[in-house]
């Protein structure tokens, strides 16, 4: 269970970490953030945690402000000194509301609530891990070549030579030397299925890109990323704010 703590008072954050260590030793605290500013930076660069502990009034503003920038879907346990914001917290995904100083019993109850919620709504993380590591998945062979039809002939293309697959009525295959072919497959999902996910990235609904083809990328203030591909005819590829952290982890291995 990956946990993120947003709390402006360092000492109070330390105490919460100590309590979590006692009560939920399986919890891994990814980070402790003290301001809206640093939290915003964090969510731009990282995938969501499993559980978020969050104070409301921070040293530089109100933590609710984050919801204006990010579509945060993970469950949140709010912690505050005085309960006047309770109603508001449940409009976002607040699953519980703790008052400071945090009572151990209350924290245990909040974590049970989180576990119950997780059980009902999603596949437990450990099961997911089992599935990912399943021999059938592990031993899966990815294709090295893709056969495309061109002028009544079948042409084998090395997948390592592919810059990008993109959907525009049909699926185009663009190679590093600038050639463009039409794939036989009807959906990008079918293509994605035969590609090695360490080499290719689904950049959105319309594109799958080869890692080797990425020349550079840059972010903007909204958290989106823009990729420049080596093939000069291709426009910049946009990566959504939600997908940006996933992309960053994929590219930086």
């Amino acid at each position: 269970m990956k946990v993120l703590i947003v709390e402006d008072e360092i000492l109070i954050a330390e105490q919460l970490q100590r309590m979590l260590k006692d009560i939920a030793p399986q919890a891994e605290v990814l980070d402790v953030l003290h301001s809206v500013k640093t939290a915003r930076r964090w969510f731009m660069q990282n995938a969501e945690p499993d559980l978020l502990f969050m104070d409301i009034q921070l040293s530089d503003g109100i933590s609710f402000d984050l919801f204006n920038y990010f579509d945060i879907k993970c469950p949140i346990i709010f912690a505050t000194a005085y309960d006047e914001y309770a109603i508001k917290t449940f409009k976002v995904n607040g699953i519980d509301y703790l008052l400071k100083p945090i009572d151990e019993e209350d924290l245990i109850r909040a974590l049970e609530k989180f576990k119950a919620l997780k059980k009902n709504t999603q596949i437990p993380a450990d099961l997911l891990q089992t599935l990912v590591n399943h021999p059938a998945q592990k031993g899966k062979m990815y294709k090295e070549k893709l056969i495309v039809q061109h002028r009544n002939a079948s042409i084998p293309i090395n997948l390592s030579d592919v810059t990008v697959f993109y959907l525009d009525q049909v699926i185009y295959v663009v190679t590093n030397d600038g050639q463009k072919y039409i794939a036989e497959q009807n959906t990008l999902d079918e293509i994605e299925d035969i590609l090695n996910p360490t080499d290719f990235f689904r950049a959105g609904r319309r594109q799958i890109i080869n890692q080797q083809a990425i020349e550079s990328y840059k972010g903007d203030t909204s958290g989106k990323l823009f990729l420049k591909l080596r093939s000069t005819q291709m426009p910049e590829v946009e990566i959504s704010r939600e997908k940006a952290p996933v992309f960053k982890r994929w590219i930086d291995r």
Partner: protein
Amino acid sequence: MESLTNTSSQSNELPAVPASDATDYGNTISDVKYQNLVSQLNPHFLFNSLATLESLIYSDQRLAVKFLSQLTRVYRYILTTRTTPLVKLSAEINFIKDYADLLQTRFGKGLQVIINVSAKANEKQIVPAVLQILVENATRHNITDPESPLIVTINTIEDQLIIENNLQKKQILEPQRKEALKSLCNLYTYFSPVCIEIQETPETFKVILPLI
């Protein structure tokens, strides 16, 4: 009565016109006392302080004991000065040092309080807990981030006490206590021919209190 130079204060808690005639002394003083109590017993201050204390009990017992005695002194001062119209500035300064220490333990490098008061001024008088209202006001409305600290200075120039802070406003959720500074201004009209003066620039917020 033109010393209230700017009504768009950092807290927007200022009256447009100081009302000296409309309110009688008894009501005004009980207003201020009430506000002191309300702000001192501000539940956020109390419960955040207790949460800090809890953490210190685990991590640094000596500091926990110091923090506890400062918290005790702060509350005792508020309670014992409830019925006192004026106190010596030196007593108020000792109190505000405790209060500032409590805040600094919590905010770390995000807050600096610099006090520089002349010996002569220390013998003058002031309405008790006024400084607490002003310092709390500053921390409530401004960013207290170690990367951009809030700096509050308390100085004296002759018979004036000057409390100044850099302005870096933050969004706040706490309900406004619009009456605090207003009651304070009103109260001062009973003690001093000189009014409280408030000056705001884009960078700073300054309150000038006449010493009595």
